[in-house]
């Protein structure tokens, strides 16, 4: 069919995003880390887990770009492989908490009443505790491992998504087009899935992007205090912890993973902020 091309709101948001400078920077950083994660075996110069005590605590050189750590592992290669872990943690945790947050928020917002009260009070209790503390409690219960750290971080971030989605659902469910769906006899579940949720996604996308950064930071924090990645894994937070005792002799071993964490979180936050602007029809 020969229809004239219309500029949909998605197209419009996309164009706004391209004009946004922090979006470009944020997206470039995120893209950079994704490429590094995909091509880690090609980029890394050494096996990230291979200890070599003879070469321990070396400075930067042509052989070891960022030097070596306390047991002689190549820091550059460990940071490169650490990208994989961090992105994995961020994506899995975010997907998990969005899934459950959406479910809880949608039920609370759409049905209201007792379900709303029950769900949101539990969420409030979770929000009342600092996220890292709650995550520590959960990992302590489940036992120390990276998987459990991911689970902990996912659970901790559920309330944020639930609240955001509930607020959107409360706004959307009163709109005429939702009432129109009731008039044609659509079931509640159908209305929720086909009509309400698609119109609640914009704030969720923003929060998800910001949330990946926060999840990465929290997971690194858990690993730093020894509740995350197993000993010897090339995880940035764990690396910080391992190398902390050498901070005077070899500052690079600590700063390098720190900068990596800082950059990846910055990238996701810049992208999230820009997305928020792009999806807001009032900012043009």
């Amino acid at each position, binding site marked *: 069919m020969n229809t004239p091309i219309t500029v949909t709101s998605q197209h419009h948001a996309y164009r706004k995003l391209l004009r946004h400078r922090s979006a470009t920077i944020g997206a470039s950083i995120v893209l950079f880390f994704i490429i590094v994660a995909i091509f880690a075996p090609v980029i890394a110069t050494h096996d990230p887990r291979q200890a070599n005590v003879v070469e321990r605590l070396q400075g930067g050189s042509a052989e070891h770009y960022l030097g070596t750590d306390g047991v002689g592992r190549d820091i550059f290669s460990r940071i490169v492989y650490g990208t994989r872990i961090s992105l994995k943690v961020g994506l899995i945790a975010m997907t998990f908490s969005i899934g459950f947050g959406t479910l809880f928020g949608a039920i609370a917002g759409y049905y209201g009443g007792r379900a709303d009260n029950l769900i949101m009070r539990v969420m409030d209790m979770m929000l009342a505790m600092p996220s890292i503390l709650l995550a520590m409690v959960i990992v302590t219960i489940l036992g120390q491992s990276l998987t459990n750290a991911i689970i902990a971080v996912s659970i901790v971030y559920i309330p944020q998504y639930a609240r955001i989605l509930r607020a959107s659902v409360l706004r959307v469910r009163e709109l005429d087009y939702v*009432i*129109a769906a009731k008039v044609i006899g659509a079931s509640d579940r159908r209305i929720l899935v086909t009509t309400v949720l698609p119109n609640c996604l914009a704030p969720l996308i923003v929060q998800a992007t910001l949330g990946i950064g926060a999840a990465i930071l929290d997971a690194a924090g858990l690993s730093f205090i020894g509740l995350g990645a197993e000993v010897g894994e090339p995880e940035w937070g764990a690396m910080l912890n391992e190398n902390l005792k050498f901070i005077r002799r070899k500052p690079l071993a600590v700063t390098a993973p720190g900068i990596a964490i800082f950059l990846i979180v910055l990238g996701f936050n810049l992208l999230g902020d820009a997305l928020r602007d792009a999806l807001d029809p009032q900012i043009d």
Partner: protein
Amino acid sequence: MTKLLEVKDLRKYFPIQKGIFQRTVGYVKAVDGINFDVQRGETLGLVGESGCGKTTAGRCLLRLMPPTSGSFIFGEEQVDLAQLTHREMLPFRRRIQMIFQDPHASLNPRMTVADIVGEPMRVNRTAKGPALEDRIVELLDSVGLRPQDMRRYPHAFSGGQRQRIGIARALALQPELIVADEPVSALDVSVQAQILNLLAELREKFQLSYIFIAHDLSVVEHISDRVAVMYLGRIVEISDAATLYQSPKHPYTEALISAVPLPDPSAQRKRQQIRLEGDVPDPSQPPTGCHFHPRCRYATDLCKTETPQLQEVAPGVQVACHHSDTLELQGV
């Protein structure tokens, strides 16, 4: 003509809740015992100021909110829709559809026109595949939209076109009754006429009945066979449209009619304008007696104490006013 719908003593009270225990301290009587009927093929206008309960009445009819009491006897089956459960209501949902006021809020911005118009048929499984596609094209054609419009999103259309999409959606299930909630009040005047003509045309074509809710008598005049005037949750006058305009029997109707501008400027100048004093009273604390008495020019002491009942004063004309037989009220 046969009776399609009979509304008996419809009431909708909204509780006013206060404090942390949500104690009910009073009620807003949005709709306070109204009775009317709709004949097959007829358009009943439901008129009144904002807050008089006309929209609430319409939404109760569609079971979008549960009525506090009352019954809606519908169709040949004489089923009382107010008593049905949600599941039992489903087959009747197809037969009563709705047109919305704001064409910008009533269409899902993330669905194409084809999805919006096709959704009722998909939900009710009345058509699918190529048959569904054909039916969508047919519906779009009957509201004056082109088949190639179906792949576009609502924001690409003007207000009038969007309202046409909403009308096509309402027609999709071949309803018998359409509740039109101020369908033209959000549109430009030039577009209003087009939509009114379209509604009249569709009524003939598909043998529809309308309950046409509006706050503007001039709009209702064109499309309605009979008009019911509401004030503060009650019907004050029902009569056929021509009679209502020529010789209103209730002072409130008279005031509404005098607010309709006349096309002839000299006639407009000569006419006596009735300006109602004050606002619609708070529906949680309605005036005693006749609800209209604080704003009525003809009010007597009787009006302050006794509530007038809706009574037949002439064939087809019902009025709720103590003085309807003595007042000489001005029409158009």
